[in-house]
């Protein structure tokens, strides 16, 4: 598995990114039936896919998309403060050390075992990235089934408010504390990351 970490400013046109936007369409539009914009009939791209967003993308050896996530800075408009502020009982958490995890996407072309491995690797990559760049807190909005899975990852995850029914789904806002102990907590919960060899920077700049 290869990990690409880049901002929207760096690489929105990259092949790896295009594959991610296609996979996002398959997952969020085709599978989960979210009402989100689709471009050119094949890319799921919304108003938050800007130069400010950071993407973590896992691909296989030939560049096929396996999984990805998008991080939004919370000092700019993001999903929790723009679309679902009512999910937070207090103020929406924001600041330089707080980023929102959005569009956590596991490519549906994998079977459940491969998806789980991709998921574990991506969650560990998110924690490592956070520690790397000084993010001490993630926030997110999740449908309840997904909320439970996020919780079961074993990291320190707290609710930001009571869940609410939004258009037929039960949604909850959550915050995840990231500390040097987080990777250990993930491992203790059974999340085993695959190796993500370096060469990432080369891949990023190749396009």
């Amino acid at each position: 598995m290869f990990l690409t970490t880049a901002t929207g400013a760096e690489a929105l046109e990259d092949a790896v990114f295009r594959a991610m936007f296609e996979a996002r369409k398959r997952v969020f539009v085709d599978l989960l039936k979210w009402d989100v914009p689709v471009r050119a009939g094949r890319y799921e791209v919304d108003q938050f896919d800007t130069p400010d967003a950071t993407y973590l993308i896992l691909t296989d050896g030939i560049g096929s998309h396996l999984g990805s996530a998008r991080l939004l800075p919370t000092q700019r408009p993001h999903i929790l403060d723009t679309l679902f502020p009512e999910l937070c009982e207090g103020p929406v958490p924001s600041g330089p050390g707080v980023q929102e995890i959005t569009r956590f996407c596991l490519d549906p072309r994998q079977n459940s075992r491969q998806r789980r491995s991709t998921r574990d690797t991506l969650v560990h990559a998110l924690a490592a990235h956070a520690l790397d760049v000084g993010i001490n807190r993630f926030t997110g909005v999740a449908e309840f089934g997904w909320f439970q899975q996020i919780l079961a990852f074993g990291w320190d995850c707290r609710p930001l408010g009571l869940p609410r029914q939004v258009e037929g789904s039960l949604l909850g806002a959550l915050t995840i504390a990231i500390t040097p102990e987080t990777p250990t907590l993930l491992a203790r919960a059974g999340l085993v990351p695959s190796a993500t060899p370096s060469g990432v920077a080369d891949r990023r700049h190749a396009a």
Partner: protein
Amino acid sequence: MRAGAQCKLRRLAGIGGLGSAPAVEAVEMSSLAAANEFVELTQCATTNDQLRDALEAICQSMGFDYFALTHHVDPRASQAQAIRLHNYPEPWVAWFDEHRLGVSDPMHRASRVTDAGFRWARVPSMIKLTTADREVLAMARREGVGDGFTVPWHIPGEASGSCSFAVRPGSEVPEDYVLVAQLVGTYAFAAARRVNHIRLVEADGPPLTGRQRDCVLWAARGKTNWETAKILGLSEETVTQHHKQARERLDIPNRVMLVLRALYEGYFCFDDVFHA
């Protein structure tokens, strides 16, 4: 850490000394604060007894009489580890087990069709209730368990479970607290899973090939191997071989179990079977 947790537990349940005092402080807290106190308790918990105490306390302060956190398995038959924490009346639990309801209990079945918590009153609109199911509900009422709210717990690759909160017959489910119960039930199950070291239950063999998956999918759609062979342009013998190898890979003895296992592991979904 544990002393602090004990102290919070007392506060949460209003059991600081006057056993009959209602949970005044818990009521004055915001609902989220109440849930968060419970979350903190569960994070400190290292044993099932601590979890049971915490559930007992929050259950009271939310206005419910009973809680039941359980995997949906038959505890007498299951080889896998299963969690069960509850304060239901003993006769009801004995009857429940005697009738092996761990798997077939209507609330357990209903919790498999949703990710969100549900009032028991809604169950008839979620699953088809049989005469036996109605007997189960009547028996529960006779044994002192009336209405309730169930929070499903689903993690891919693990046994499903739920955390239910119930009231005695004649009492109302505290409507103001069902969303708190949603959070509490979820965190309780996550903590129980951690305390009991629950892990994946799955075969370790290699995954199915694309062809094997296709053959199993057509079996799920009710086709014989001969029909599948015609559809896929293979010989019947080849389809039979694919089935055999798929069973070996997933360590499954027969055709019906193979179809179910493939569904469970996500090789295809119900939509692929019924709406293709």
